[in-house]
């Protein structure tokens, strides 16, 4: 599926707000510095050794989540998302409690979580000795689980919390499916705006890497990088793998006509976005990236632009993506966002897109292509460029 440029200017998709949070910090400057190569990746090698993670920068939650009661009802993956969503909404000039916020629609890319690790540990330690394992499990869960933990686990409760805390109540849809959920959230929001099926959307995702249960899923598949920090491009030769990162990004997408009518400026224009899901075999990812480029990247002019790749570092697909990019745009800088803030699964593509938007807005890039190749499945590509007349 591919979305090209909207036919009429009125339905061009403007990015009018961004909010991003990662191990690098909060907001534009911390992330632009990484793009310039002026900062080094923040890696915590101790807490979850032997698994390094890129930990979220400490945030003053109350800046975006004023009520303590709301903070208590969320786990960190949700708080990161609600925080970044708030930044994006403010950035777009959508004031808290404004009528306009209530009309914004959401497409959120989310996983789930988080476990109560102490309760799980106690159950696992006791169940082997229990006379009746199932009865023991039921008894302990009934008495030890916090009732509200469920609400911190449900995938759609990131969107639900954004509705409650940030007052975005147009409607929300939550996409699941790791990296590709982030790609398709962007693609479908873009398609709906271009087709007149909505005027203003909040799109993004969040991920908390500082969770042993998150690490566990990826360790099961052998995907975690356990060595000293190395660029994602250099990892395949040593077995490959990713370092999970905590982070979140949200973007406000808006039909040009809608933005102009309220006097909002474009930070950048989302020219096109494509996604695909190819059956993986050697060579398939390279072919897929080239096909997506043909669909949505053709207007990339090269000079003054860059590629922001969401490459994971997983062996095979990482080299294939790099090979195709080198073939398509030789000599154009290719930045791996995984080298800056790690791999943030559902949030990786939105984070790449938010960073691309910031770079275009700041005049560092004329255009940027953002790519995603999921560690297991799914490929995506978007093109952003400077707004006409600087917005």
């Amino acid at each position, binding site marked *: *599926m591919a979305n090209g440029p909207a036919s009429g200017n009125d339905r061009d998709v403007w990015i009018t707000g961004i909010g991003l949070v990662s191990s690098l910090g909060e907001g534009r400057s911390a992330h632009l510095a990484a793009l310039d190569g002026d900062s080094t990746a923040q890696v915590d090698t101790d807490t979850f050794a032997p698994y390094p993670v890129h930990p979220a920068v400490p945030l003053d939650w109350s800046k975006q989540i004023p009520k303590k009661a709301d903070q208590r009802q969320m786990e960190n993956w949700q708080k990161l998302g609600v925080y970044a969503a708030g930044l994006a909404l403010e950035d777009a000039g959508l004031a808290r409690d404004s009528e306009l916020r209530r009309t914004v629609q959401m497409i959120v890319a989310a*996983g*789930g*979580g988080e*476990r109560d690790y102490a309760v*799980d*540990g106690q159950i696992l*330690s006791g169940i*082997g*000795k229990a006379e009746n*394992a*199932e009865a023991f499990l*039921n*008894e302990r*869960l*009934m008495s030890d*689980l916090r*009732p509200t933990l*469920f*609400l911190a*686990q*449900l*995938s*759609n409760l990131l*969107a*639900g*919390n954004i*509705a409650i805390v940030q007052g*975005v*109540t*147009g*409607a*929300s*849809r*939550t*996409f*699941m*499916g790791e990296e*590709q959920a982030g*790609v*398709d959230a962007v693609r479908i929001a873009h*398609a709906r705006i*271009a*087709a007149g*099926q909505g005027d203003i959307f909040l799109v993004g995702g969040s991920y908390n890497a500082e969770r*042993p*249960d998150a690490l*566990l*899923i*990826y*360790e*099961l*598949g*052998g995907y975690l990088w356990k060595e000293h920090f190395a660029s994602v491009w250099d990892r395949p030769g040593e077995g490959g793998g990713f370092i999970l990162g905590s982070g979140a990004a949200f973007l406000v997408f808006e039909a040009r006509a809608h933005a102009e009518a309220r006097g909002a400026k474009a930070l950048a224009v989302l020219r096109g976005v494509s996604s*695909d*899901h190819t*059956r993986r075999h050697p060579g398939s990812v390279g072919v897929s990236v080239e096909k997506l480029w043909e669909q949505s990247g053709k207007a990339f002019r090269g000079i003054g632009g860059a590629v922001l790749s969401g490459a994971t570092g997983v062996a095979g697909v990482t080299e294939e993506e790099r090979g195709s990019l080198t073939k398509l745009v030789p000599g154009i800088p290719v930045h791996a966002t995984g080298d800056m803030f790690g791999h943030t699964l559902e949030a990786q593509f939105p984070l790449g897109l938010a960073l691309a938007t910031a770079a275009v807005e700041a005049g560092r890039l004329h255009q940027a292509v953002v790519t995603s190749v999921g560690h*297991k*499945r*799914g490929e995506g590509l978007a093109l952003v460029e400077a707004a006409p007349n600087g917005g």
Partner: protein
Amino acid sequence: MTSVPSSSTRDALGRPLVAVTGAGVVTSLGQGKADNWSALTQGRSGVHRITRFSTDNLRTTIAATVDYVEGAVSSAPFLSEKLAVLAAGEAIAQSGIGTPGDFPGALFIAVPPVEMEWPQRIALARASGRTDDITYADLLRAAGSGAFSAWHDLFLFGTVAEHIAERFGTRGSPISLSTACSSGATAIQLGVEAIRRGETQAALAIGTDGSVHAEALIRFSLLSALSTHNDDPAGASRPFSKNRDGFVMGEGAGAFVLEDYDAARARGATILGIVAGCGERGDGFHRTRTSPDGGPAIAAIREAVSDAGLTPDDIDYINAHGTSTPENDKMESLACLAVFGERMNAASGSLPISSNKSMIGHTLTAAGAVEAVFSLLTILNGRLPPTINYELPDPAIGLDVVPNTARDATVSRVLSNSFGFGGQNTCLVITAEPGA
């Protein structure tokens, strides 16, 4: 409308019409439309005592699980995929679209959020060799052996969709989604929108849920959301009754093959009905409770009706969300009264509303899709499935809930409601084939 027009058929708002050409369903009542419809119109309940896992120490011991499917075990991704395959297979076979394994359109599938479950945690703990003070560090160490790598894929959020996409040969990137208890309706809505904007001429929309296991049940139980009428499983789900005390968890799947109306006609497909309108509205009131004034639900209903180019007076029947929780049924009744007014009054009898959940329980992620299939069958069969267990009417809810017994009615326009945790309100309007 007797001939296939050369120009495209449009709805009242100038968009391509979205036809349903295939439908499939599986619930605790049975597999397939025929068995389900027969049971549903006989007022039979699929709720029973849970036997798939131990209910020792649980407050609720009943559910409408699907146990008759070969290999049914308590594993949310595994069973949800199985149920989705059954429903989608039935829908695609009926539509006659494409060729086996080559569905010429996109996939939108509502799946329950997954995570590692207890059997796997316990196996990893055992493999770690540790017996005391077990932590996730031990599980991680065991996972590192590579012996359990299949569980990586099993517990990824996108795996069920990938398996369904590969099995049926759908095109492009499949969408896995969740909007809690309105997920199934959202899957259909996404398909409708994709066809309306001309992105695809066909879509496979599925809602599936096979997630009843001990912890899932306990989570709802701890929120006091479940019925505890354990001694009377078939009578436990009592939507709109005064003595309703919560919902009963259910499993199932529903699927629609959606097509551009003209494309479907051009290939000679039988048009079963039209998804004419969709409405949705968020709610920032509370994580599990809906705005008590029903505001967002009212807005979603109005939007669905107007999106269909209709007015409230055009709706013939409402397929309720009707969970049997004290709060939902009250709020839903309020919202329907606000939109449809006097017609909702039982005395007037002009706008009946009934809840399939009285029989199949709350199929959660699947509910919106399962109930959309039943809404379509209501139109096709001219018969309203009842709300069973309606022995003690709630005087605060004076609706015609089609109490206890099915009845014949001419129905060409149905509103199907879905409301969920996290402020999710999604409504669909399903109508008869325009030429019918």
